[in-house]
């Protein structure tokens, strides 16, 4: 019936990965352009506005770099868990918890000098984020509770917790009823690097990326995580502490997402409000997977997807295209990369 079938390649197709990614991008842009046409908007104009907003101006490049910071940190964490085939879908919630932790420190110790308060905020953010990831980790280890669903449910709960705080106990009495906390004191705000719009959160990104790369490459624990990623049976035969490693990758994952939340609250909005929850945690999953979990590629793909978000915002302003256009593209890119991945290990041959 079918004239073609799959045959395993003798060795993996080395040029496959970049070609597949380019192919996936072309395909996704094609389908998205078609969607624009169907909505009665010019596809060519739309893609031009998207390009302009993503790469066409210096403000766009800066905006993308700023957005890439939280996405990168979340994706770095998610990728560490994915390495062990621990499916942490909870970066969004861990991000929210990080923001809550940092805000707690900023609101309670506003008079501490920056060199004390800032580390305290990062510490609280990391602890809260790691705690939020520890819950599903321990549930999975002790009771085999599926971590995909528990992390997801914890996302919803975290966002509602954040809402509860900014609508209730932490609400700024001087905000005219808007659900925001009071603005942070100057020592709780992450400063700009020199004269640029870029803030020091960027340095945290670079540092975390390098540290993670070195950790995975040069340390025994990093090596063990990679081995454990081959599956629980392999881990048991190699006498690895599988449970401890699971908790470790989840805690790292949660702490990094927590940092992202801390940076977003402190540097971008200077207070806690619900508008920081824009789905960076979900974009992080796309980023991590496109980058095949490698820190350097995570940096590149975090930047590209952040640029896509900025470009879609531009489309929103100029062509009234809804923001959800960005998630359509993210979904399409991810689906087509997943489908294309097959070509690395298989080739299509004619049936005899």
């Amino acid at each position, binding site marked *: 019936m079918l004239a073609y079938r799959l045959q395993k390649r003798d060795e993996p197709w080395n040029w496959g990965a970049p070609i597949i990614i380019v192919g996936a991008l072309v395909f996704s842009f094609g389908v998205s352009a078609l969607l624009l046409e169907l909505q009665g908007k010019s596809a060519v104009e739309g893609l031009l506005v998207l390009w302009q907003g993503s790469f066409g101006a210096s403000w766009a490049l800066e905006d993308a770099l700023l957005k890439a910071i939280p996405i990168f940190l979340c994706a770095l964490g998610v990728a560490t868990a994915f390495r062990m085939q621990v499916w942490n879908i909870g970066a969004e919630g861990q991000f929210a918890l990080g923001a809550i932790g940092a805000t707690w420190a900023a609101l309670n110790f506003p008079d501490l000098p920056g060199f004390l308060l800032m580390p305290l905020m990062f510490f609280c953010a990391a602890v809260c984020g790691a705690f939020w990831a520890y819950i599903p980790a321990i*549930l999975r280890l002790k009771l*085999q509770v599926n971590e995909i*669903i*528990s992390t997801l449910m*914890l996302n919803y709960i975290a966002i*509602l917790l954040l809402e509860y705080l900014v609508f209730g106990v932490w609400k700024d009495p001087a905000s005219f009823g808007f659900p925001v906390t009071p603005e942070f004191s100057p020592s709780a705000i992450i400063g700009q690097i020199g004269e640029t719009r870029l803030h020091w959160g960027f340095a945290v990104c670079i540092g975390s990326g390098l540290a993670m790369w070195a950790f995975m490459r040069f340390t025994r624990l990093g090596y063990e995580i990679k081995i454990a990623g081959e599956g629980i049976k392999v881990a048991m035969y190699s006498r690895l502490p599988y449970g401890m490693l699971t908790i470790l990758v989840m805690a790292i994952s949660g702490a990094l997402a927590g940092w992202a939340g801390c940076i977003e609250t402190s540097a971008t909005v200077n207070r806690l409000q619900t508008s920081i929850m824009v789905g960076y945690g979900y974009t992080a999953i796309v980023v991590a997977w496109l980058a095949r979990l490698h820190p350097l590629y995570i940096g590149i793909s975090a930047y590209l997807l952040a640029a896509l978000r900025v470009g879609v915002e531009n489309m929103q302003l100029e062509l009234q295209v*809804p923001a*959800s256009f960005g998630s359509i593209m993210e979904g399409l890119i991810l*689906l087509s990369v*997943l489908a294309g991945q097959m070509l690395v290990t298989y080739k299509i041959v004619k049936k005899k």
Partner: protein
Amino acid sequence: MLESFIVPLLAATVQSGTPILYATLGEILTEKGGVLNLGVEGMMSMAAFVAFVVSLTTGNAWLGFFCGGIAGTFMAMLHGIVCITCLGNQVVSGLALTILGTGLCNFLGTPFIGMGIDGFDKFSFPLLSSIPYLGDIFFKQDALVYVSFIIPVLFMLFINRTSLGLAITAVGEKPAAAAAVGLKAVRLRWIALLGGGFLIGLGGAYLSLAYTHLWANGLSGGRGWIAVALVIFAFWRPGRAVFGAYLFGGVMAFQLRLQAIGTHIPSSLLLMLPYALTILVLIFSAVRGRSGNAPAHLGINIEPEG
């Protein structure tokens, strides 16, 4: 108390449990065939949107319901192309499907926000609705609820009594063995996936056609994920799925009623209830059955030979 609070609450429970019931049964069928589909949330959203638009433009709610199912099937087909044909990772593909589905319906649905449709109205089922209490709870509902009473029974008969149902179960358990006795493993997986997608789509269609009668972003509100969790809670059995779906319907209805009465509990905390309950339900089923009833090859792709 009974007349004024409990009976209306249980009637609301049945209504809000119905979309979850359709979706849970759909996911059970999908997983019976060995495919893990985490796209339920996106599929339900897309189906709710398609059902809404079809019903709005044709004025025929039944056609809308059917097209919602077709939308679910179409989304399941994308998952099948990625996972069954191209051997992609099922977990990530499902997530991508949810991202795509929720994005797509919000994008296409923007012009329709706030518009209303007639959809399905409640009516008293002849005779049965006059049974005391039970009649008020189960038989003063809309037509889609009545349909949902029959589906679990048909589902059970299909899975346990027909050769196709048994073959699908075999493929989920051991595709290689199923293939060895001459079953078309890949084709059976497709049937389970697409059939399950249709049911999931019907659940999504219920949301816009009977639950809200209008279109809004984020209509699904996590119900798709709850359905995925309920499959585990139900140990992949349709009977327990009914129980689970109504349990969640109950919590959602109760939470809405508490808000309406105006308690001192902040609404964000009340809204947490279904999500917290999902985790509790997973813990409960883990303690009870160690979730060991899962099809043995759930989530594992069938590699082509040669």
